[in-house]
């Protein structure tokens, strides 16, 4: 691994090495190589591309990053990081925990015995490939080909993920099986934010969630980064703001999540990310909603150097519903860019997007949302809301909510606002004796709470709320 040339993210040797060392089956090797070819041929996006506008992508040289992983050890189950411990405490009960920690170089996965008996599979991706090759093949490789409705091709980083993924989990919930909101599954992925021998490190994570017909899934995923030497591991935001400007991209996180919601299945997902200010996180979450399926997805973004995240919802069949919600809290020189895509390919579908962004210091956010309604998707209801709260005097927010409607029997609307904390609200609170800072913090907390309160997973909203409040207060 010390030879960066061998392990960098554009070397063919890396792909070969993965397939050999993991003893991967032929189909996976072929899939990786095909994706790798396409990945190399796809030009690097530039800040001039509409989708990547204003990101500092031009400074990223993929040949300079060491590709990390996979983790093999299951040792060191003690010394969990602070984020893990506080989350486990807040979400009192769970049905299983996936833990992948690059700082401790340790990985484990547990699952409730009853659920396992019912056929639920919750494993690291490497293990899933070994133990359930057919299912793994279906969702790692074939699912894309089956997906007629995926019009947008993979972008460079999705292809990179398909070629080079090493970490991540695979969750499969069979028909009629329920994983309740009272005892959800939890997943923790903790990256390191240090350079390795002068090179940045690249983490390529692939997460797959499959909810078969009539099933119910509750799952919370926490992705974080911390440097191994810090005692308060997981709380990397504490690094002095003076260092922020100088922070170079030391870590590149490439996360590709695919969620398959079966017919009449109900899937509640919560994602929370908290990276250090030298982490460039690129992620794509693609969700496919089957007939009368229901997706409730909340993402909380609480820090990084740069975040470029695509959240895509495809209404594959009639009657699907999706509710995508996001809270974003940026500070320092953080740059956050979210693209949401609501693609209505089938009739009688409903999708909602609510994104709330609060920006401190000189953080910048670009929200681009698009609602696409295909000709066949009559009786579509689609709503999109993006609210931006500017707290820092140099904070910037761009909002580009787009609609492309080809059917006529639809109700589509979007709204976007940008502004500071409402002065009347501040005045009201200060008239009751609160200081300006406390009043402002309360308003921002309330601004997020309206989204967080919709989370059904027990204890999750409170936990994220506390993390956000801490960062607001800093």
């Amino acid at each position, binding site marked *: 691994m010390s030879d960066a040339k061998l392990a960098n993210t554009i070397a063919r040797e890396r792909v070969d090495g993965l397939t050999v060392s993991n003893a991967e089956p032929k189909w996976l090797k072929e899939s990786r190589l095909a994706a790798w070819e396409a990945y190399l041929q796809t030009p690097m996006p530039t800040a001039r591309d509409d989708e990547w506008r204003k990101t500092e992508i031009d400074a990223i040289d993929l040949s300079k990053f060491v590709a990390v992983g996979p983790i093999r050890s299951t040792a060191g189950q003690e010394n969990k990081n602070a984020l893990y411990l506080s989350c486990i405490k807040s979400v009192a009960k769970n049905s299983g925990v996936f833990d992948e920690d690059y700082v401790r170089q340790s990985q484990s996965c547990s699952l409730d015995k009853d659920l396992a008996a019912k056929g639920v599979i919750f494993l690291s991706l490497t293990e899933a490939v070994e133990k359930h090759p057919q299912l793994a093949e279906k969702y790692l490789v074939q699912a894309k080909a089956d997906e007629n409705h995926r019009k947008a091709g993979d972008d460079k980083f999705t292809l990179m993920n398909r070629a080079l993924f090493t970490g991540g989990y695979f969750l499969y919930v069979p028909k009629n099986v329920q994983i309740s909101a009272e005892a959800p599954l939890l997943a923790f992925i903790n990256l390191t934010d240090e350079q390795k021998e002068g090179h940045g490190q690249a983490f390529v994570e692939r997460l797959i969630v499959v909810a078969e017909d009539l099933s119910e899934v509750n799952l919370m995923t926490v992705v974080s980064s911390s440097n191994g030497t810090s005692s308060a591991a997981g709380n990397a935001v504490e690094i002095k703001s003076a260092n922020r400007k100088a922070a170079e991209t030391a870590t590149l996180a490439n996360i590709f999540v695919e969620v398959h919601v079966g017919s009449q299945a109900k899937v509640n997902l919560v994602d929370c990310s908290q990276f250090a200010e030298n982490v460039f996180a690129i992620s794509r979450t693609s969700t496919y909603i089957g007939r009368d399926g229901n997706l409730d997805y909340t993402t909380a973004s609480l820090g990084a150097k740069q975040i470029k995240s695509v959240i895509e919802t495809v209404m594959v069949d009639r009657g699907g519903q999706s509710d995508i919600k996001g809270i974003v809290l940026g500070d320092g020189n953080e740059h956050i860019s979210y693209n949401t895509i609501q693609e209505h390919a089938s009739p009688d579908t409903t999708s909602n997007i609510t994104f709330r962004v609060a920006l401190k210091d000189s953080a910048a956010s670009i929200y681009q949302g698009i609602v696409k309604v295909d000709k066949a998707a009559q009786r579509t209801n689609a709503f999109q809301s993006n609210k931006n709260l500017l707290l820092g005097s140099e904070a*910037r927010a761009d909002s*580009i909510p787009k*609609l492309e409607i*080809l059917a006529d029997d*639809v109700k589509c609307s979007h709204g976007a606002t940008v502004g500071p904390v409402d002065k009347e609200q501040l005045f009201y609170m200060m008239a009751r004796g609160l200081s300006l800072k406390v009043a402002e913090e309360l308003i921002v907390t309330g601004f997020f709470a309206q989204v967080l309160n919709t989370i059904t997973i027990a204890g999750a909203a409170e936990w994220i709320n506390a993390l956000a409040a801490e960062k607001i207060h800093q």
Partner: protein
Amino acid sequence: MSADLAFEPPSTESAVIAEIGNDYKYGFSDTENYVFKSGRGLTREIVCKISEMKKEPEWMLKFRLRALDIFLKKPMPTWGNCGLLNDIDFDNIYYYIKPSQNSEKSWDDVPEGIKNTFDRLGIPEAERKFLAGVTAQYESEVVYHSIREDLEKEGVIFLDMDTALREHPEIVREHFATVIPAADNKFSALNSAVWSGGSFIWVPPGVKVEIPLQAYFRINAENMGQFERTLIIAEPGSFVHYIEGCTAPTYSTDSLHSAVVELIAKPGAHIRYTTIQNWSKNVYNLVTKRAVAHEDAKVEWVDGNLGSKLTMKYPAIYLLGPRAHGEVLSIAFAGEDQHQDAGAKIIHAAPDTTSLIVSKSISKNGGRTSYRGLIKVYPKATGVKSSVKCDALLMDDASRSDTYPTMEVDEKDVNIEHEATVSKVGEEQLFYLMSRGLTQDEATAMIVNGFFEPFTKELPLEYAVELNRLIQLEMEGSVG
């Protein structure tokens, strides 16, 4: 006069609805009779020839030639409806046509063929009744032009652009292309190279022009580009309302219309610019419109887009001085094979500036409407308030509506709002009206009418008869 008009008022609402966007009422054309018609295509020689025929000063010729270089170098835009854009054959267009020798002051002197066209559109009637001044642009040159005496007394200059360049070279040179430089985009460069005609208005400080100034534009020759250039300067504390309406005969091959409109509202001035654009369905309408509003100034674009094959038009307002205000109120109607890609741009570059955008669009029979807008707030532009509202109605499942708003906010102390809705005609509204005895078509017409109402109510009552009819026929006329 109106008895000569080429259409019968439709008898029922349903007839009107059926006609919206279908038949082009003014699809007649006169036999071509021109004093000068340039060859097809664009060369350095043609640009020199245009400048020479107009006896322009040296600086204008230099400006044109530089613009020509920019035009040839600039690539086509890679956004918008690229398919249609790339169909434009720049080598197959007449860049300059001069229909008759002089700009006419009196109606009697206007050549008969041209007069017929205007007669059929009802221009003289409008003139007799209430017009302050008519600059009727027939092809590339202004042929008919009159100014009411009291305007002249107040010192208002209202001329066609070519005459203005001859008679008021200093004012023109000081302001020309200061708002939209030739290099702004490919089509402004094209216009800068071959511009001809258009209006020039200069309003002295403190003068309020109470009556709207109007210009009438027509394209007549097949495959003829029309590149008018309008410049309006409102000196401090003045007010002017300018109205521009367009209609063109239907032809089988494509025409290109690429105007440049520059508005300068100096401190405390107020400019309102109203456009009703109804090009025939083969016209490319690629227009650059931009205004600057200085301290306490106010600029309003009232913009109706009914015709053309492809319209790309985004009236812009640069709010450069504190407390400047900008408004864009627009409607777009796209019928079969039409794409109305319209929008608005507001740049807040000073504190306490405010803006309002209201956009309404209807797509029918496979038409496509797009709203493409930008709200930009620069750092230190505190106290900015901006509100954008876009509503779209889809009349059938073959049609399409897009909304592409962009908000770029680099200042904290601002309030920016954007709202958009896309829907079909409301079932409940239809049901309510039909339960009161209206047929579905009548009810639909009434709802469509109400949908456009915020726009139609902004048009002055004493509008030219032709434009009134157009509005009535396409939108308002649906009731009764």
